[in-house]
């Protein structure tokens, strides 16, 4: 039980990204949207534009700083939704058993057989692009893993004394599930959720990259990359920096998850 370097490196990265997001208006030298100026289109990195400009002459660093807000917000919000759904279903399935358990397991298997991004694409097709649709499309499609883990954990803990005594004292199922069981199985779930934030950020970026996520001209890291392929030859910095921001942020969450696992789940119940 000791905190390894993963925990600190991951936590440090996320802290930096969070500071960038919070203080974006103070840090960013230009406005992310209205600073468009074709005079300065596709300028390479310089003292004036630290990370260069895009095809509309907008400062890439400023857009990355504001984009951190979207990535972090969506990553966290989506993961909160997924975890809430997964844990509620998994807890109740493990606790009640019977037909409800069968049903939840069937549903989980179904979710696993449709790749998250495909499911999200289908939902985006129906709901149309934009932030609310993104939240729904990503927040309701990636809960299968936390559901499986919490169910398996409940099954191993259900027969233990503290659960039995809470039942005998006369606490209702909701109290037993969320007040007694949940704190005892939280370790592995926190690990899964932390890594899930990383995947949610990638999923959002992918959808925005395809033009089906955050509506332009709002700065989203994925969206900034959507026109990068065509400019790869003349302005490679358009492709490099937003992707680097994505990579480092997701790496931060994955390292934090690894570090938390060493700390909270030494037996590797969430190993993957």
């Amino acid at each position, binding site marked *: 039980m000791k905190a390894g370097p993963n925990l600190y490196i991951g936590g440090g990265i996320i802290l930096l990204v969070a500071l960038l997001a919070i203080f974006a208006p103070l840090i960013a030298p230009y406005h992310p949207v209205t600073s468009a100026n074709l005079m300065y289109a596709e300028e390479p990195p310089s003292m004036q534009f630290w990370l260069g400009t895009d095809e509309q002459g907008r400062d890439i660093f400023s857009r990355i700083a504001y984009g951190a807000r979207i990535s972090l917000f969506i990553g966290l919000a989506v993961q909160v939704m997924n975890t809430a759904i997964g844990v509620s279903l998994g807890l109740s399935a493990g606790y009640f058993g019977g037909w409800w358990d069968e049903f939840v397991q069937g549903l989980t*298997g*179904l979710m696993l057989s449709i790749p998250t991004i*495909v499911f999200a*694409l289908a939902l985006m*097709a129906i709901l149309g692009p934009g932030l609310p649709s993104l939240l729904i499309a990503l927040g309701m499609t990636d809960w299968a893993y936390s559901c499986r883990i919490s169910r398996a954990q409940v099954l191993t803990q259900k027969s233990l004394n503290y659960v039995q005594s809470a039942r005998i004292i006369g606490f209702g199922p909701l109290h037993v599930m969320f007040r007694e069981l949940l704190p005892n199985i939280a370790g592995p779930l926190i690990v899964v959720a932390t890594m899930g934030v990383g995947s949610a950020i990638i999923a959002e970026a992918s959808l925005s990259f395809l033009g089906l996520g955050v509506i332009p001209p709002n700065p989203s890291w994925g969206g900034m990359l959507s026109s990068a392929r065509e400019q790869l030859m003349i302005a490679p910095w358009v492709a490099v920096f937003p992707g680097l921001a994505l990579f480092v942020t997701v*790496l931060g969450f994955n390292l934090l998850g690894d570090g938390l696992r060493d700390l909270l789940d030494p037996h590797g119940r969430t*190993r993957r």
Partner: protein
Amino acid sequence: MLQLLLRRLAQAALTVFIVISLVFVLFSVIPGTFTSSLQADKRDVSQDVIERLEDELGLNDPLPVRFANYVTDLAQGDLGVSYATRRPVSDMLSGRIWASFKLACAAIFFAVCVGLPLGFIAAIRQGSWIDTAAMTFAVSGLSIPGFWAGLLLMYLFSLKLHLLPTFGYGSGGLSHLILPAITLGIAPMALLARTTRAAVLETLNADFIRTARSKGMSERRLVTRHLARNAFVLVLTTIGLQFGSMLGGSVVIEKLFAWPGVGSLLIDSVGLRDIPAVQGAILVIVLFFLLINTLVDLAYLVVDPRIRYN
């Protein structure tokens, strides 16, 4: 054994049916999907053309009738007619399935060939710098967004080194396949390296490995005869799951590399709100997943006697 297989097939069939119904209901219950997509495109379509189209496509029938028709057609291999191209969806899919399948096979080949040895060496040399380097590489591979990795590879190997074509399918040869396959294989490769390392470490601690040591065999024989196969059994599920979800996972990569597969059809159709094509593409992706997982179950019957006889 046969019973197990039949149960698997029944489960898969049920899943397919549920997915079909789900996709159908999702796209049908939301009102005005088809007309609004025409209007959203700002096409100059008169009201009675829309009505005639809707009539022709059977969109005015009650929902249960439409569902029954859809399932009946599906059973006969008829996936409906694309709204956008007016061609049968099955025709549109047939060529693309091969392209996607080829890409998925190449990607899983890359992932297995790199990920397995990497995880294996990391576990055997646990705690050494090789282990640290391999696992740092793996966590980076898990964190890198595929489409960005693709952009970087494209920049390096096509634009700078001029070794490989940037994108497209070409004449279907190897040179166009390499970059998208590596891009698509990065994340599964990283995951496999981690899973393999964990599996080998778990196996190394198993009692039967101690028994094997007590027999007095060389490390080489210990690894090849006792360790590798047992560890591989633990990794097989992960390989199957990764391969199975590859058609879905390749959606973004196919779009980036303009690969004419099921994934890019799905994205284009989502943009056009071409419901029959979307339904067809999703169906193919889910069927592929279920097929691969059934094959993995069958593979377990071969490699693991504990399952063979139970």
